[in-house]
């Protein structure tokens, strides 16, 4: 590795390449922050641009977009309660309440610090022990993946802290929605109502736009109509401490940041999962080990740190199977695989021996991108915060226009716009009746993994569920799931008792 360092540094450190990384980050943050424009599509559209570039420059651009895009989603999540990317859905839970308390600046800064630190540590792990992590990830077969998904689903009970049953119901609706489409094993159509548009399942991006953006738009209109009631709109507090994260607050959250990084890294390294799942699990874990879990969902700084560190650490984790095994961890790394192939570089065991310079250069790019990410995001923050002071009657129509256009452009299919509208109505009703939309999203995202891993497990074991409890890694996750649920129930009971005691006096 050391002998590759000098040529790698030469590859990365030229003005054009640094500019490309910065451009990638800027594009990523912007696209990520705009609900309706999605990062995988941006990466796909930029792919042909990279063909004529040096592979290191091409990868610099896409890695910049990847990192920036994963972070950017949090900006709109915090400011307008609409995640710009699925991974930021959890950030809404505490980021938006913080903005309603005038602490948008603090939440946005926490998001930057969490993202950058999570990324940085994950990148260091990638650089130092990628092949060991990959070997461990390969041990995860269908059975292990099933229990991991089970564990991830158990965090629904945490995410929906106050309305547990409604949270579980929403999660189940999400899982059911995934069932629509072709059965992955027999190929028969399930719940498609004969609509060809549904044969590939309920389209994801329109669902996300509808559930979060359109529904939020409806809620805002309603608030505007029933004016007079002084309700909590996001604003910027005059007090300086509401806009910055103090050293004391940061120290209090170091444990959360490290835990979330580890979760993001691990989930990222498992192909087929992704940043949204990591954000969910990090958030759940943070709440369950927090000293004041009641604050979660009401503007907890810890919650923002957990979600944002968790989702950005995935970017480092997902590169591990890509580089060492040639297996992409998510939609974006799948497209990145194309850049390698285009330049005759085949990711996998041979990459490190055959093209050491390129691999080390990618490592250097990652670290440089981390530093630039911090700088660009901090500069952009001043600009983004101003969005809040923009009149809602301009902000929301613009956002909704971009969203609907975004729902259409991905597939040039008007059906997707209808899906966004239908889910907008559903999201509105859910929000009105306190069903957490985040839990629905989680069920929808985890559904496919849950089903295929269970089916694969049962096929391999000739129909027996025993392996789920007898394989060691799997058993650990089953026990963790049980523990997690019991623990969150216990926390809730304590909180209720305290509330009662407080009311009693």
């Amino acid at each position: 590795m050391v002998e590759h360092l000098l040529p790698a540094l030469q590859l990365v450190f030229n003005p054009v390449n640094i500019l490309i990384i910065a451009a990638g980050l800027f594009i990523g943050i912007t696209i990520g922050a705009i609900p309706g424009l999605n990062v995988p599509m941006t990466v796909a559209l930029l792919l042909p641009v990279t063909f004529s570039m040096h592979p290191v420059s091409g990868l610099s651009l896409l890695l910049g977009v990847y990192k920036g895009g994963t972070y950017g989603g949090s900006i709109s999540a915090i400011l307008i309660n609409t995640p710009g990317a699925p991974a930021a859905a959890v950030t809404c839970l505490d980021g938006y309440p913080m903005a309603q308390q005038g602490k948008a600046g603090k939440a946005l800064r926490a998001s930057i610090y969490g993202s950058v630190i999570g990324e940085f540590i994950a990148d260091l792990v990638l650089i130092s022990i990628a092949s060991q992590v990959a070997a461990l990830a390969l041990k995860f077969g269908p059975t292990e993946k099933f229990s991991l998904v089970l564990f991830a689903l158990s965090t629904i009970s945490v995410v929906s802290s106050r309305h547990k049953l409604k949270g579980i119901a929403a999660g189940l609706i999400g899982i059911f929605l995934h069932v629509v489409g072709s059965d992955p094993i027999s190929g028969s159509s399930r719940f498609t109502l004969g609509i060809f548009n549904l044969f590939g399942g309920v389209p994801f991006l329109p669902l996300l736009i509808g559930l979060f953006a359109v529904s939020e738009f409806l809620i805002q209109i309603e608030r505007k109509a029933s004016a007079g009631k002084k309700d909590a709109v996001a604003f910027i507090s005059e007090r300086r401490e509401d806009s910055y994260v103090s050293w004391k607050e940061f120290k209090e959250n170091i444990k959360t940041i490290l835990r979330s990084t580890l979760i993001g890294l691990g989930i990222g390294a498992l192909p087929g999962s992704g940043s949204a799942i990591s954000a969910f699990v990090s958030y759940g874990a943070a709440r369950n080990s927090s000293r004041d879990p009641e604050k979660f969902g009401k503007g907890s700084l810890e919650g923002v740190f957990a979600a944002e560190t968790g989702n950005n650490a995935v970017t480092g984790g997902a590169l591990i199977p890509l580089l060492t095994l040639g297996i992409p961890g998510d939609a974006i790394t799948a497209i990145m695989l194309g850049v390698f192939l285009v330049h005759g570089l085949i990711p996998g065991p041979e990459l490190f021996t055959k093209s050491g310079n390129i691999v080390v250069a990618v490592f250097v790019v990652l670290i440089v991108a981390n530093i630039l990410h911090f700088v660009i995001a901090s500069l952009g923050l001043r600009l983004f915060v101003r969005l809040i002071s923009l009149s809602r009657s301009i902000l929301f129509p613009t956002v909704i226009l971009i969203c609907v256009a975004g729902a259409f452009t991905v597939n040039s299919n008007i059906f997707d716009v209808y899906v966004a509208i239908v889910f907008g109505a559903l999201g509105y009703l859910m929000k009105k009746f306190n069903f957490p939309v985040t839990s629905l999203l989680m069920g929808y995202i985890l559904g496919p993994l849950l089903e295929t891993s269970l089916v694969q497990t049962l096929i391999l074991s000739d129909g027996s569920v025993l392996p789920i409890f007898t394989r060691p890694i799997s058993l650990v996750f089953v026990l963790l799931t049980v523990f997690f649920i019991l623990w969150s129930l216990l926390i809730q009971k304590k909180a209720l008792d305290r509330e009662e005691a407080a009311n009693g006096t």
Partner: protein
Amino acid sequence: MKRSFFVMLLVLLSFGTLSAEGQKETEAEYPSKAIQLIVPWGAGGRTDINARMFASVAPDYLGQPMVVINKAGGASVIGGEYVAKAPPDGYTLLAITPGTNIFPPLFDQAPYGPYDFDAIGQIGSSTMAIASRPDRAWKNVDELIEYARSNPGKVTYACVALKAPQLGFLRWADAAGLEFKHVPVGNDAEAVEAALGGHVDIAMTSSVATIISHVNAGKLNALMVFSEKRDKLLPDTPTAVELGYNVVASPYTGIAGPKGLPPEVLAKLRTVFRQVMEDKKFQALMTKVGEVIDPKYGDDFYEVWRNDFEGYSEVIKKMGLKQ
């Protein structure tokens, strides 16, 4: 005032782009205006890249621009239907793969049939292959066959269900009189992952690119390929045909139009297709993106569809895979 002007501008801009498409064309010698090439999948995939490369060179010979439009949804049936039902005037073409005109019709999940398209040409095809970890009881396909014969239904293979990989594998297994256990996965990478981790015995992938690095590193043994000829990347791996099984299954990428193109339009498109395939610039572009050009022209391409559809129909009937 200023603000509402800005909003109005946005709205007007978005409508402006929509109405620009509605212009009426005048009759003239084909092609007299831009041609749409519909990609029924999202941007960034292999079909999309092939289509974009083709569309970047074809205008040199058409004298008109070619615009790539991603019309995805419904597992590519939406884009397929759009072209199948488009007026057969040569201005709407399809980047076609078995995923659009073979598999959905095979399972009655498309509002069109496999032959509701006019074949213009095949750009390339990918080599399907099976591979196993070296610690398995077999080192090559002969040993695998022997092992599977004495352990029917015990050997597991992971691949995408009910598409070229599983159906191709089943055609071979049926021809060889063998029985395996199928483990469905979402894509090629997951099949390779399951085999590398030792969770299944065989990975069946729709392209050699996903296994070649592991084969070269000695982590996987490539056992057999399903193409007509041996693959350049795996010169020592035999084809199914060589071993005496009449199974050729290579997922293609090509260009087609709606059925019933006027003869002179079809002829023009086929000529242009051949010119693009022989174009040095196109060949260089394709090499650059790692795609192998393996052209088949006109009716030969149509024959590939026939071979696929009939071969797969037979195997799904035999295995009772259709509800």
